[in-house]
C-alpha cells in the first residue's frame, strides 16, 4: 500500500498541493511501519522555487510544500514513538531541513519520539542553532491561550440580520 500511495503522490502535478497533502495524511494516519522510507523521502525532497510572485499575504507554494512535509513529519512521529528506528533517524535528519516550519515540527516530533527524556531534550537543543533552541520549549496550546476576547456586541436596532436560522 505504501508504494501505491507514494506512486500516486508522485503522479500528481506539483500544483495539486491539497491532493498531495491528502495522500501524505493517509500515509501517515495508517501508521504502517514500512511507510517510514516513503515519508522520509517526501520530507527530504527539494522544494521547487516559489511559484507565485511575492504579494503581501499572497499564497505561497513554498508554504504549501512546508505543510505537506510537516504532515509527513507527523507520520514519522507516530512511527518513531511506536519504535521505528528508521522513523527516528528520518526525524533526526529533518532537524536539518532548510524549511523553518518543517524543522520546527521535526524538533517537536523528535522530542516526542524520545518521550522528552532529559537526554533527548539536550540532544535536540544541541542540534539546533542558538536562535532556534527555544523550539524545544514549545508547548501545547491551552484553552486559555486560544480564547479570544469577546468582541463588543452588535448595537441594538442594527438592521442587518444577526439571528441565525436553525440548522
Amino acid at each position, binding site marked *: 500500500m505504501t508504494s501505491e500511495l507514494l506512486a500516486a503522490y508522485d503522479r500528481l502535478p506539483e500544483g495539486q498541493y491539497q*491532493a498531495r497533502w491528502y495522500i501524505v*495524511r493517509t500515509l501517515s494516519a495508517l501508521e504502517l511501519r514500512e511507510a517510514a522510507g516513503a515519508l522520509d523521502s517526501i520530507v527530504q525532497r527539494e522544494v521547487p522555487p516559489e511559484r507565485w510572485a511575492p504579494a503581501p499575504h499572497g499564497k505561497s507554494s513554498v508554504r504549501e510544500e512546508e505543510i505537506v512535509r*510537516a504532515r509527513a513529519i507527523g507520520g514519522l512521529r507516530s512511527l518513531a514513538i511506536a519504535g521505528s528506528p528508521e522513523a527516528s533517524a528520518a526525524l533526526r535528519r529533518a532537524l536539518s531541513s532548510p524549511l523553518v*516550519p518543517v524543522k520546527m515540527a521535526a524538533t517537536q516530533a523528535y522530542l516526542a519520539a524520545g518521550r522528552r527524556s532529559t537526554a533527548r531534550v539536550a540532544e535536540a537543543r544541541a542540534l539546533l542553532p542558538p536562535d532556534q533552541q527555544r523550539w524545544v520549549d514549545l508547548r501545547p496550546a491551552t484553552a486559555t491561550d*486560544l480564547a479570544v476576547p469577546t468582541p463588543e456586541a452588535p448595537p441594538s436596532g442594527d438592521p442587518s440580520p444577526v439571528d441565525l436560522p436553525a440548522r
Partner: protein
Amino acid sequence: MKTIRLSATAALLALGPAGEAHAQVCGQQYPLDPSISGDLYYSAFGTCEPWFFDHFWDAYDFDEVNWNEGFGHDNTCNVNLPLARTMNAIYALTYSSPTPDYHSSDGYQGDILEWGGLYAPKKIDELDGSCEGPPGVIASTWNEPIIDNLTELYLPFFYSNNVAQRAATIIHEARHASGSDHDAYCGGATKQCDSSWDYNGAYRYDVAWAAQFVERGVGAPAHLKARLTDDANNELAGFFAVDPGFRLMHSDVPLLADFNGDGRDELVAWRPDNCAWFAIDALALEARVDSVVWGLAGHDDRSLTGDFNDDGKDDLIIWRRWERKFYMLSVNGPQWGELKVDVDADVALVGDFDNDDRDDFALWNRTTGAWWGRTVTGSTLFEFKHWGEPADRPLIGDFNKDGKDDLAMWRPSTGEWFGITTGGASLFHILHWGELGDMPMVGDFDGDDKDDLAVWRPLTGEWFAMTVEGAPIVTGQHWGVVGDIPLVGKIDQGKAEDMVVWNPSEGTWWALNKQGAVLIGGVEFGQPY
C-alpha cells in the same frame, strides 16, 4: 489572506467593472475536487436551499453582479462554482459549534466557534467574488471610514482551499473588516503578519477559530480538521513576529479499564486522530487491545469505558454528543451496540445505577442542571430537573455500599461536595475538600467497597482523599507533576484503588498505592504530544 488599505479612490479603481471581471473565464488549472475540499459533504446540509442561502445572501450583502456569469448565481447548487463553495464555508463557520442554542443568540457568547458565525456578517459589509485578485492572493478586505467595507474573494479561495480553510479565511477577513490590520512583517518585507498573539489580530482570529473547530467542531470530515491543524501550526510558526510559544499538539487520551475481567485495570490509550484504542496489562505490560478502531475522527467523539453486556469485562464506549448517541464495542468479541438518547446533555458518565452488573449512562446538562439516567437499552432509570450548577464537576461512585452507583458533585469555587442517590436521597454534603484549580476524583481508596472523595492538586502534584463521612485517607501525598493527567484505578490485586498519573509530555504512566508503594514507575505507553 490579505488586507490592503487603500484610499477610497484607489480602492474603487482597483475594483474595476465587475461585469468585465466575470465576462472572462477564470482559468483555474487545478480546481480542488469537491470531495477532497469538503464541498460535496457540506452541500448536503442544504447550503443552496432557501432557508440557508437567502438568509446568508442578505447577511453578507452578496450582490448578484459579483456572483453571476460563471460564479454560480444562476446555479447555486453547483459545488464546482465559487458561490456554492462560499456558502459551504459560511455554513462551516456558522454551524460547527456543538452548542445547540448559540444560533438564536443576539450577542457574542462563548468562544469564537460560537460567535464567529455571528461576528463575520456583522463586520463584512459586502462579500464579492472576483477573478481579478493579484496572482496567488486569496482574499482582500478594504476597510475605510467613508465607503462601505468590501471583502473580495479570489480564485485560490474557491479552488485551492477546502471548506474549513475558507471558513477560517472569512473570520480572518472579518477581523480586518472590523478595523484590525496586520501590524508587522515577518520573514521579509512582503510577508505581513501580526506583531504578537496579544495584538488580537486577524491571525489570532483564524488560528483560534481553527483550533476550536478542530477540537469541538461537529460533523466535519477528519481530513479538513487535520489540514486546518497543519495550517494553524504553520501560521503560529511564521505569522506572528513574536512566537506565541504554543502549537496545536495532541496526545492520546489516557483511561483505565478492566478489559479481561481479572479485577485489575489495564492502561488504556485512545488516539483521537484515528480513534484507535490500545491497552496493556499494567504490570505485565502485555498488549490487551492493539489498535482497535472505535469512533470517528473529527466527530467530537469522547472515549469512555464500561461493561455494557454483563460479561464482567469493560468495553469500549464512544459518546458522540451532537448525535446524542453512545456506541459500544466489546473488545472480547464481535458484540456492539448503540443507543440514541433524546436528551440534550453536555456530560456523559458511566456507572451501574441499578445493580444489575451492567453499566448504565448518566447524562447531565450543565446549563439547566437536568440529569437523565438510561440503561444501555434506553430504559429510564432516573431523571432530575435540576441538580448542580454550571461550573460544578459531576462524578459517579457507590458511596453507600448498596451496589448501585450514586451521583456526586464537586463545586470548584467553594470546594463543596454533594452526593445523592439516583432516587434523589441526600448522601452527604461536605463543606470543603479541595481548592479552586484542583481536579476532583472518586475511588475506593481504603478498600471498604465504598467510594471516597479525592482531589489532585495540579500545581503541587498532591493527592487528598477522604471518606464521605469525612475521615481522611490520603493527605498531601505527592504523586505527579504539573501537566499530568490524574486517574484512579486498581493496578494490583489489592482491594483499594490506586493513584495513577499519565504524563502527556512523555507518554509515561506512574501509579502509587495509598501505602506509598510505587506500582508503576514511568511505563512508556501511549503517544505523547
